[in-house]
């Protein structure tokens, strides 16, 4: 915040209780110039266009989904059946929602702590000759297309995961979460792992960026109080980076929730009518993978509408995740400027 840099802030001069921002009102005075007006107009126009586009897309999707939903003979949110076409369509998203959410959450649980750890290592512990190339490599990894991870999982990693998965189901199978079901490399557990590896570079790259920006004075403030390196990280670096880490995690979660190709080629779909299972060593389909694998066979508006409805749920899910992240960040804002 500017006051700590210059030692003077608007708050110094503003009388008590008055909004310090009002001192900055003068900024608006410059909008009378032609260049300012043109740019301001263009920016407003662009913003409105984007909003209009989003609204239009939403309206279009809803108009497709609603007729199908009206004909649906089971509860769309709680049913596990998926028979979207025919005269008596019965379709619900319970299975997809479970698979999507659990795999993304598992991926987050693995990737976020690991990514934050790697980012801390790169920015705080590694010597410069190591941290710079490491940072570059991570940034590059963040740009690898997901199909590459999918193929890697299918061809290479899966083989090594099978024995591990079998070991877990053999020894912890009595827990519903780890009950055996299918080849480990075609289960939720394995796609969670692949998703985690996929989003790890994103989390790491973004966290690294915010950690590296921790103001030196904050770090020195902590060290001068007699903080050890780790204590300094806890008092200065982590709090400063927290909003950044949260946004990184949400971006990554968004990617995990919406990941299509890798999930499609790895995860084996369940046979219709299979019993409900809480196990992560089970197959399934996520919203994205189910929609993508059926996309070639959209033959009736009824069927298409059902899938679009499922897509809308995914959209809302991502939206909620982002909203929560925003709220968390906003709540801490007063403390983080």
């Amino acid at each position, binding site marked *: 915040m500017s006051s*700590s840099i210059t*030692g003077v802030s608007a708050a110094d001069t503003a009388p008590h209780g008055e909004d310090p921002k009002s001192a900055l009102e003068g900024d608006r005075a410059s909008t009378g110039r032609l260049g300012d007006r043109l740019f301001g107009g263009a920016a407003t126009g662009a913003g409105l266009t984007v909003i209009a586009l989003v609204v239009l897309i939403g309206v279009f999707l809803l108009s497709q989904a609603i007729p199908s939903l009206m004909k649906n003979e089971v509860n769309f949110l709680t049913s596990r059946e998926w028979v979207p076409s025919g005269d008596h369509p019965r379709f619900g998203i319970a299975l997809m929602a479970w698979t999507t959410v659990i795999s993304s959450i598992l991926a987050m649980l693995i990737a976020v702590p690991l990514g934050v750890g790697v980012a801390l290592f790169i920015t705080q512990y590694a010597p*410069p000759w190591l941290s710079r190339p490491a940072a570059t490599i991570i940034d590059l990894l963040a740009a690898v297309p997901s199909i590459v991870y999918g193929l890697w999982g299918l061809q290479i990693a899966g083989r090594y995961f099978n024995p591990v998965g079998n070991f877990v189901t053999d020894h912890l199978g009595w827990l519903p979460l780890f009950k055996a079901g299918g080849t480990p490399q075609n289960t939720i557990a394995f796609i969670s792992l692949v998703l985690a590896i996929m989003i790890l570079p994103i989390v790491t790259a973004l966290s690294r960026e915010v950690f590296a920006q921790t*103001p030196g004075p904050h770090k*020195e403030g902590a060290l001068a109080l*007699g*903080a050890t390196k780790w204590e300094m990280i806890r*008092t200065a670096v982590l709090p400063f980076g927290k909003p950044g880490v949260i946004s990184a995690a949400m971006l990554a979660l968004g990617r995990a929730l919406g990941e299509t190709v890798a999930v499609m080629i790895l995860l084996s779909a369940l046979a219709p009518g299979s019993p409900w299972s809480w196990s992560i060593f089970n197959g399934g389909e996520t919203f994205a993978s189910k929609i993508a694998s059926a996309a070639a066979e959209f033959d009736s508006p009824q069927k298409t509408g059902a899938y679009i409805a499922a897509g809308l749920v995914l959209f809302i899910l991502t939206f909620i995740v982002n909203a929560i992240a925003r709220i968390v960040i906003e709540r801490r804002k007063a403390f*983080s400027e």
Partner: protein
Amino acid sequence: MAKRIDVKDLDIYYGKFKAVEGVTMTVEPRSVTAFIGPSGCGKSTVLRTLNRMHEVIPGGHVDGKVLLDDQDLYAPNMDPVAVRRMIGMVFQRPNPFPTMSIRDNVAAGLKLNGMKNKKQLDEVVEKSLKGANLWNEVKDRLDKPGAGLSGGQQQRLCIARAIAVSPQVLLMDEPCSALDPISTLAIEDLIHELKDKYTVVIVTHNMQQAARVADNTAFFNLAATGKPGKLVEMNTTQKMFNNPDEKATEDYISGRFG
């Protein structure tokens, strides 16, 4: 609580660059010592070696001795973290932890020392804020962010944070340079009071300030640009300002160069 600092033949380096050379001085306990000298002569550098903050900078290292009541701060078995817990520091720019409330800022050092008891923490927070002449201004908003205070209040908050852990010595690097005259006076008054309990070392560019607050004054200078800085003279402030031993001191203080 207050301890004496003896610096013996100290050379200070940034990597291969020798920034300061051959400093030998004594900082008396329960007194205020001011470091003065032209920009770049190494005042901050010397100050930061007194609590081993210098080595935080990559490549920063020293040659020589710094004794705190006969305890060698640079002995191989001396933990820099322990040194910094004994010798607190206030920086030129106020640097409260922005994510913490006023209360947590003051308590930060105590928590590092493992103090958990809420009541005990609150007591020390109150005592330290009173010690830093800030209590009356913030007692109703202890849970608000420290970064929401004015610059002068932030600096006093940083002083409260530093004295909360009851250090033996308090180092201040131009603590008033970013502040208005009124905040500056408030902090100078505070330094006067702190002297009863602590050994205070302050870097300042303001001759009047040195004359007002310091019992002893050390004048640093550069022999030439690119050469390491040196301690030219250290004496009572009285003597430094009236009849210093060195011509260079007199010239600097009377504003004839620097």
